[in-house]
């Protein structure tokens, strides 16, 4: 039966093929060939033409991005006696990172290892990124370990500025979000060092005031606008690596979330008025305004900020009641939509071979439970190890005891435990920024458009028309002469 079925089918095909051959004349084949040839000529001509003429204002490119030079080790700089850790700046203001480096040098490092040196590049993450990238492109060995903002890991990994690092099977000690932030294309490039996720700060006893964000024209502005939309029920990014622009998927809710004058609080049945002064706020300025409880004559009752603001507030006696209790509370957001921040420790591609093992030893130390606990208790840096959170949850955990025996400004164990619990919850709800080497371009364009909406300079139509440009930005392409959502708006 099977044979006859296959046999009859084959016969049928053969009959069709014979009929087709009979009906096809030579002139048809020639015609088909001519059509194909004509189209090839046309497309080739058009392709050459479009490169030269499609954009008359764009000159024929005479430049190309340079390749990283193969600088000989003896000329690539760096001091063999130093292991340089390049970082932004120690935002704890207490210099706690420095203490960790000091301790490593004086007490812990093997005698043959070079001394570690902490080099602060800039308070601006954009400047720190540019500085690290420029040195990597020049083949410089001046920096050995990079403290990288998680937003830049993809760029540094894909462009070959940092090298993969082996966690030696101890991945499970890290929180999953920060761990994934250091993974690019299936490889681990960064060891989690500090995590960050948004918290809602709420002044006790003053619920009638407004909510302060940080919408200043820098990376914090981008993060806050992303959160405003995604915590408010809209959508900006999608996909596993968050590189799909979903701005126009749920237009109404996205627009409503961005334009809303109110912010839903961590207890979802409540909301507060968003303060327009947020447009001029960065992290530090908003902490100052929250402490004062007012900005521009308007009451401030709530603030979005990173966990590190907790220490800045808790150390100010004005934020404590006469019974020493805190005059503010912290809460994780109620839903997904916060932006995951933080930093990783990465090894420079150009590190000299002799420094590789010492660099790994220092990274191990900086990501150890002991250091992570102290960075959290004394500096406000958010831990990346589950063990540290579990200790606080079990009633243990570290507090920052100063050597002189005074603890009048440091958070207590129960305060740190509350902070740890809310921070962990927020980290688990937070989403990463797009894993694109061109995140910086996306960030700038998205922020410009979102700020433009807040300033009533950018229309709804223009805002949603930015989808294509945002996709182009994520692939690294630049805009034409008249940038979308430019200063004059549309």
């Amino acid at each position: 039966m099977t044979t006859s079925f296959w046999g009859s089918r084959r016969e049928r095909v053969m009959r069709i093929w014979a009929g087709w051959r009979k009906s096809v004349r030579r002139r048809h084949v020639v015609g088909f060939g001519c059509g194909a040839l004509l189209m090839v000529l046309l497309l080739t001509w058009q392709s050459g033409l479009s490169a030269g003429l499609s954009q008359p204002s764009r000159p024929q490119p005479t430049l190309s991005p340079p390749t990283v030079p193969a600088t000989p080790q003896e000329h690539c700089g760096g001091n063999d006696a130093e292991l340089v850790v390049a970082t932004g700046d120690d935002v704890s203001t207490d210099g706690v990172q420095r203490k960790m480096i000091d301790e490593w040098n004086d007490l812990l490092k093997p005698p043959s290892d070079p001394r570690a040196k902490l080099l602060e590049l800039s308070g601006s993450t954009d400047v720190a990124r540019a500085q690290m990238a420029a040195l990597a492109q020049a083949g410089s060995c001046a920096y050995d370990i990079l403290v990288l903002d998680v937003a830049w890991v993809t760029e540094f990994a894909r462009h070959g500025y940092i090298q993969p690092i082996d966690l030696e099977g101890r991945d499970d000690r890290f929180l999953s979000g920060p761990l994934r932030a250091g993974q690019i294309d299936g490889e681990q490039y960064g060891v989690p060092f500090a995590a960050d996720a948004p918290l809602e700060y709420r002044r006790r006893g003053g619920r009638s005031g407004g909510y302060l964000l940080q919408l200043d024209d820098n990376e914090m502005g981008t993060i806050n606008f992303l959160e405003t939309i995604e915590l408010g029920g809209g959508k900006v990014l999608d996909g596993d690596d968050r590189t799909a622009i979903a701005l126009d998927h749920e237009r109404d809710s996205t627009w409503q979330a961005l334009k809303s004058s109110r912010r839903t609080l961590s207890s979802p049945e409540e909301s507060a008025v968003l303060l327009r002064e947020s447009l001029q706020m960065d992290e530090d300025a908003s902490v100052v305004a929250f402490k004062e409880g007012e900005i521009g004559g308007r009451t401030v009752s709530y603030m979005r900020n990173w966990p590190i603001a907790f220490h800045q507030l808790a150390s100010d006696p004005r934020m404590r009641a006469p019974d020493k209790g805190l005059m503010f509370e912290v809460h994780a957001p109620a839903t997904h939509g916060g932006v995951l921040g933080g930093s990783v420790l990465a090894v420079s591609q150009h590190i000299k071979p002799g420094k590789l093992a010492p660099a790994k030893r220092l990274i191990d130390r900086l990501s150890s439970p002991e250091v992570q606990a102290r960075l959290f208790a004394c500096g406000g840096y958010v831990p990346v190890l589950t063990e540290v959170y579990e200790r606080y949850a079990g009633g243990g955990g570290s507090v920052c005891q100063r050597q002189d025996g005074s603890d009048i400004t440091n958070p207590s164990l129960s305060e740190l435990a509350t902070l740890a619990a809310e921070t962990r919850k927020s980290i688990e709800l937070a989403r990463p920024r797009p894993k694109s080497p061109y995140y910086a371009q996306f960030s700038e364009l998205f922020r410009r458009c979102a700020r433009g909406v807040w300033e009533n300079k950018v229309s709804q139509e223009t805002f949603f028309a930015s989808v294509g440009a945002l996709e182009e930005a994520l692939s690294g392409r630049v805009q034409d002469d008249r940038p979308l959502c430019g200063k004059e708006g549309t």
Partner: protein
Amino acid sequence: MSDIEQNEPAATEPGRSPFASAVQAALIGALAGAFVTWISTPWLDLFKSQPFHIQLWVSLGAGVLVGAVTLIPMLRDLIQRHPKQVRTALCVLAGGALTTGVWTVVQAVAADDQCPAPAELRLVTAPENVTELTARAQSYVRQHQTEDGCPVVRMTVGVAPPPIHLRDAFDNRWEWREDRRDQPYARLYDLQPDAWVATSAAEPDELRAGGLQSLGAPGPENAVGRDRLVLAMTPQRREELSTYMDNPDGYAFREVWDTLTKKMGMTVARPFPETSVAALIGTHDVFHDRGLPRSRYPRAEQELVENGLGADTVTSLLCEFDRLADKADTGDPKIALLVPGHSVDDFNANRVEGCEGTGDSAPLVAVRHHDLSTLDYRFVKVTWPDQRSAGREKLVDHFGAWLRAHPLFPSAPGPGESGLGPQELGQLKRLVLDELRPRLDLRLLIDTSGSADRPVRVQAAEAVRANSRLLGPRDEVQVFGLHAFTRNGPAVVTRIVADGDREQLGTVAASIENTAFDKWDAPASAGLGRLGTGDEAVATPVVLLTDGRLFDNEGRGDAAKVIARALEDASTVSGLYVVVFGQDECAVTALQDTRKPYRCVTASEGADKALTRAIITVRGWR
């Protein structure tokens, strides 16, 4: 009726003139055209954005579709009459279509969606030029893309270190030269440049003359812009000036200056020359063009410091002026700003970095004068020994050449006198920054209460380290701690450092960092009382570094009055300068009942900058 007759155009209706028919046809045509345009407009952009072969096939398809709908009988006839030709034509089309399909698939597969890494170039310039240079850099990036729209370079523009730090920065691989007592920390002067846009040709020339190797070769071909210094004032003040002189440029500069300061009661404000090269060049104009004898330089410079609104850069001067103009009770500020001409445009166009809404309350008008100096901007390539990359250096050169063809500040007035030479600039620096600055006995009073630990301790120490270049060989620093041992207890002043000179600032800073900030707040007035009863022969200024909480401890009554009285009573204190950390305002902004100078500022722009301003300001308080 024959086919031919059927296809003839319809005859004009009887009773209607040919003219009326023509008008009717024209109107219908116009309406139809408008309708088709209206319908198709949204689709035109979409069509234009498609690749050429898609446009071709869409046009062909649309044509065939329209033809098929309207000319079905004719097509049927054509197919029946010429079946072979039609079949051949379809084969041609099929060949073309197949080729297009294969082409599109190959293009899609071969295309790399992601751009290659652009070269990362770093530029620095004086703060007042950052906005213009950033715009130029963005324009360059847009103009120099690869064929598929990828940028060749990415540029970051940062602020260059102030004049007093420039040599250190270049000499020390852009790291601060600070005495850290062997502690393993260092910091950069922010962005380390691949190129520096200097405000004057003399600036890099002076550094080269000192043996600096890392700067590119000098030459007029590096000129990338010109501007002139101007006196900027509000339109009302400009109008008032017109009542004295129609065209100030027709008078000697001395006469313009005297009219402004004596007849109109204005002050002239300029940033500190230590931190702004435009101000340094402006100082030359003030001394030279006013025809002042050498003996009057110290007084003239002290007046400029006192009237400078405490600003260290042109940008911060513009911000301070705007804040003054915004204050309703200040009215129209009687201040003329000595700044580059383009800064006036920036101010009026709300382009001053870090200041929102400049020019809203009072715009500025530039008063130009031929005696005011030309600013001759130069592109200076910088090479660092451990960052050599021929490809990157080629791009830096290319950008420099492009910037020469697209210079900064194109709307600035034409060339005036040539700027200062490197020798003149060097002499001017020595004159203003070394000789004219009086000796300073600085007393730092540091709030060592527990609340000041986080905001003040490390930042104050870093600020002290960072200001070694501001102290001369004869200057001395004493550091005291201010606190109380109990809540609301009596103020205690402890000596942290007895006498330190500029060579010992590392020790001074380490002493501050190692001091325990673990006591209670004590009132500033009581601290002045403790400091003010010494046996110093000459009264010296006090700079108080605090988190601001100690103002709450001034007891009953008005804190300003209490502090004023304490300042007046402190015979060895010549003035009080308060720097508040971690807050955005001072609780006591001015004192009424004292002749001694008082100033209170926040450290919001950075502790080292705040201390720089404090040191320059209090130097003349005697």
